[in-house]
C-alpha cells in the first residue's frame, strides 16, 4: 500500500501539481520564475558554492535525462568499456563536485547574516532536500555496483510506464532502500518545483554564455567610478589570463607533442622480425662489400701484379672497370692493334669516375662536367673542364703457366711479342708502378 502510494500515487500527484503549478505561476507571477539572486549580498562563498554545484548537477542530470529518454543509445554507448569507465568516473566526480558546492551553499545560507535576511523557509527545504537527494544518489551509486546501464532495464521502463499511463511499480518495489529514497526524493523535488526557486531550472539563461559580463552594484557616482575601474581591471586581468592560458595551452601542447616524439624516438622501433632480418642482411652485404674492398687494397699493397680480366672478355667499345694500384677506377679496352688498352677512369678534372662506353670518335665521357677523353691518347676534348689527359696504366699478359708473355708501360713500346691466335688464352694483369720518389 505504501509502495503503491510512493511509486504510483506520488508521481502522478507530483507531475500534475508540477505542470499545473508551473503554468499557473508563469501566468500569475512571471518575474518570480528565476532564483532570486543574492550575489550582491555575498559573492565570495557563492562563487565556490554555486559554480561547482551547477556544473556538477548539470552533468549528472544530463546523464539521467539521456538514460531516461534514449535508453538504447545509452546502453549502446556503455557497451564500450572505455566509455563506461569515463562515464562512471565523470558521474561520481560531478556528484562529489555538486555535493561540495551544495555544502558551501548551505553553510552560506545559514551563516551569512545578509543572505539570511532574504532566505525563505522554502529555500532551506529545497537546499536540504537537494543535498540529501544527491547524497543518496551518490551513496547508492557507490554502494551497489550495478553500473550505469542497469537503469535502462528497471527505472526507465517504470518511468515510461508512468508516462504512458500504464504504471507498473513491480520494477521498483524490490529495490534497496537507498534507491527507493532516491526515487521518492526525485518525485518530491518535482512536486516542489512550482512553489520554490527550483522553477528556474525551466528558464535556464543559456544566452548568458554569449552576453558581455555584467556587474551588479548599488548605483551612485562613487560606485559607478569604482565599477568602471573594476571593470577595466577585470578586463585587463581577463586579457592576461586569456593570453597566459593560450601560451600555457600552446606550450603544453607543444611540450606534449615534442616529448611524445622524443620519447618514442629514444625508445626505438618495436621489434619487427622481418624488418630486422632485412636490415641485418643489408648490413651484412655492405660489410662484405667493405671487406672485399679492404682485400683489394691489401692485394694492391702486397702483389706486384693483379688480375684484371681474361683477354677474351675484353671489348672494343665497352671498357671493363677495375681498380688500379691507387685504388682508383680504371678501364680496360681491347685496342685497335689487338693489344689491351688500359686507362685510368678517374677524371683529371675533379676525380669523378668516367663512363665505360666509347662514342663514335673513340672517347669516354666524364658525366660530372662533360669532358670527353680520347682513350688512345688520353687527352680531353678542346674546352673541356678537364685539362690533363687520363694516364694510361701498365699491364702485362700472362699465359696459363704464369709467365709474362708481353707487357707494356705507358710511354714505352710493348716488351715481348705474342702471336694473335694465342691471345685469347692469356690473362690481363696490371703491374705495380714504380714507387713514387718522395
Amino acid at each position: 500500500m505504501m509502495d503503491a502510494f510512493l511509486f504510483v500515487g506520488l508521481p502522478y500527484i507530483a507531475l500534475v501539481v508540477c505542470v499545473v503549478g508551473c503554468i499557473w505561476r508563469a501566468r500569475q507571477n512571471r518575474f518570480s520564475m528565476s532564483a532570486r539572486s543574492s550575489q550582491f549580498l555575498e559573492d565570495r562563498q557563492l562563487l565556490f558554492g554555486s559554480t561547482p554545484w551547477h556544473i556538477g548537477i548539470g552533468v549528472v542530470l544530463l546523464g539521467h535525462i539521456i538514460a531516461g529518454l534514449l535508453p538504447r543509445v545509452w546502453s549502446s554507448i556503455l557497451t564500450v568499456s572505455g566509455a563506461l569507465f569515463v562515464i562512471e568516473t565523470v558521474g561520481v566526480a560531478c556528484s562529489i563536485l555538486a555535493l561540495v558546492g551544495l555544502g558551501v551553499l548551505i553553510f552560506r545560507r545559514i551563516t551569512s547574516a545578509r543572505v539570511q535576511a532574504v532566505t525563505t523557509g522554502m529555500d532551506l527545504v529545497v537546499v536540504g532536500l537537494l543535498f540529501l537527494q544527491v547524497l543518496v544518489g551518490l551513496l547508492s551509486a557507490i554502494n551497489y555496483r550495478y553500473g550505469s546501464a542497469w537503469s535502462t532495464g528497471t527505472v526507465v521502463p517504470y518511468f515510461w510506464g508512468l508516462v504512458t499511463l500504464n504504471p507498473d511499480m513491480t520494477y521498483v518495489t524490490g529495490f534497496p532502500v537507498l534507491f527507493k529514497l532516491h526515487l521518492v526524493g526525485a518525485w518530491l523535488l518535482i512536486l516542489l518545483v512550482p512553489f520554490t526557486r527550483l522553477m528556474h531550472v525551466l528558464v535556464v539563461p543559456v544566452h548568458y554564455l554569449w552576453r558581455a559580463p555584467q556587474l551588479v552594484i548599488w548605483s551612485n557616482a562613487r560606485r559607478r567610478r569604482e565599477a568602471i575601474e573594476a571593470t577595466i581591471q577585470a578586463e585587463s586581468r581577463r586579457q592576461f589570463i586569456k593570453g597566459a592560458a593560450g601560451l600555457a595551452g600552446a606550450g603544453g601542447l607543444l611540450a606534449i607533442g615534442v616529448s611524445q616524439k622524443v620519447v618514442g624516438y629514444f625508445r626505438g622501433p618495436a621489434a619487427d622480425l622481418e624488418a630486422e632480418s632485412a636490415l641485418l642482411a643489408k648490413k651484412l652485404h655492405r660489410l662484405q662489400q667493405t671487406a672485399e674492398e679492404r682485400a683489394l687494397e691489401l692485394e694492391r699493397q702486397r702483389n706486384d701484379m693483379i688480375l684484371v680480366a681474361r683477354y677474351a672478355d675484353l671489348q672494343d667499345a665497352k671498357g671493363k672497370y677495375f681498380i688500379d694500384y691507387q685504388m682508383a677506377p680504371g678501364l680496360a679496352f681491347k685496342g685497335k692493334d689487338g693489344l689491351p688498352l688500359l686507362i685510368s677512369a678517374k677524371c683529371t678534372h675533379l676525380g669523378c669516375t668516367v663512363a665505360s662506353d666509347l662514342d663514335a670518335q673513340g672517347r669516354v665521357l666524364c658525366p660530372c662536367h662533360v669532358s670527353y677523353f680520347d682513350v688512345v691518347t688520353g687527352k680531353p676534348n678542346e674546352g673541356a673542364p678537364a685539362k690533363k689527359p687520363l694516364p694510361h696504366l701498365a699491364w702485362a699478359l700472362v699465359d696459363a703457366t704464369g709467365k709474362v708473355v708481353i707487357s707494356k708501360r705507358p710511354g714505352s713500346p710493348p716488351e715481348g711479342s705474342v702471336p694473335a691466335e694465342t691471345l685469347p688464352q692469356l690473362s690481363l694483369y696490371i703491374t705495380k708502378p714504380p714507387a713514387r720518389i718522395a
Partner: protein
Amino acid sequence: MKLSRTLEQTEAYLGERFPVDKLNYASMVQKKEVPVHRLSWAYYLGGLALFFFAVQVFTGLMLLFYYQPTVSDAHASVEYITEHVPGGALVRNMHAWASSLMIAAVMVHLLTTFAMKAFARPRELTWVSGVLLFGITLGLGFTGYLLPWHQVAVNATKIGLESVEQIGAYLPGAMAEWPRAVKETIQGEATVGQATLSRFFALHVIILPLAMVGVLGLHLVSVQLHGMSRGVDEEPRRLEKFFPTFFIKDLSVWGVAFMALFVIALCVPFESFYAFPLFEPFDPNGSTPDGIKPEWYFYFVYYPLEILPYWVILLGSGVAGMVLLAAPWVLKNTTRKTLQLLAILAGIYLLVMTICGEQIYHLFKS
C-alpha cells in the same frame, strides 16, 4: 717604456671592444634597448640563426643515438633512422631543413649587418667573430653532407676536396704540393673512404660545434655589451626595451620558425629535390652518376667554378673573403648608402646563382 705604451694601447683597444664594466645585469638586460626603424626586422635574424643552431644541436644529438659512422653501416643506419625509428624521419628531416634554414638566416644576417654598417667601431670584433661563425656554419654544412654516405654525398665531397688540390697548380715550386698535402690530411687516405668519414664525423659532431659554441659565446657577449647598432643614418623613431618587449617578439618569431620548420619537416622530405638513384649507397666501383652537385648554399661558388677558369674563382673568393674579414678596417669610411648598395648587389648575385645557377651553366656550356 716602449713596451708599456704598446701594452697600454692594447689594453685601451680591447677595453673599448669589450667594455667589461658593462658586464652586469643592469646594462646587459635592463638597460639594453632596440631602435625602431625601417630596417628593424634585421635585428631578428641573428636570433633566428641562433635558434636554428639550437635545433641543430638538439636534433643532431638525437641522431647520434642511431647513426653509425662507418662506410659499411652509415647508409644503412641513416635508412634505419628514416624508416624504422619512431619519429626518426621527422628528426632527420628537421636536421636537414634546419641546416638549410640556419645557413639562409646566417647569410641574410651577414648581408643586413653589412648594409647597416654594424661593424663600425667599436663592434669590429663582433663582426670578425660573425664572419668566423659563417665559415664554421658552411664547414658544418660541408662535413654533414658526407655523413649519410650516399652517391651524391661522397662524390660531391670528392669534388669539393679535389678543388682544394687544384690550388696547387697556381703555386710556385715546392708549395705546389702543399694543397695536395692539405687535402690528404683532411681526407686521411688516398681517396674518400673510411678515414674521411671518421674525420668528417669528428669535425661535424665535436670539433666544429665546439668551435662554434666558443666563437658564438664571444659574439653574443659582445652583442650584449655593445647593444644593438643603430643601423641607419636617420634618428630611429623610438627605442624599445630589449627585455621584455623585444625578447617576447624574438620568442614569437622563434615559435613561428619552429612551427614552420616542423610542418615542412613533416610534409616535405629534404631528399625530394634530388633524383632517386643519387641516394643509393655509395658504390666505390661504380661510375659517378649524373647530376652530382653540392647543397644549394654552395651554388654561389660551384656554378662560377664550373663556368670560369679556376684562378678567377680563387682570386675572387680570396679577395671577397679578405674584404669580408677585414671589412671594419677596409670599409671604415664607406657610407651606409654604398654599403647597402653592395649588400643588395651581393644579395642579387646569391639569389641568381642559387636559383638560376644551373640554367646559367647550361647557357655557357652549350
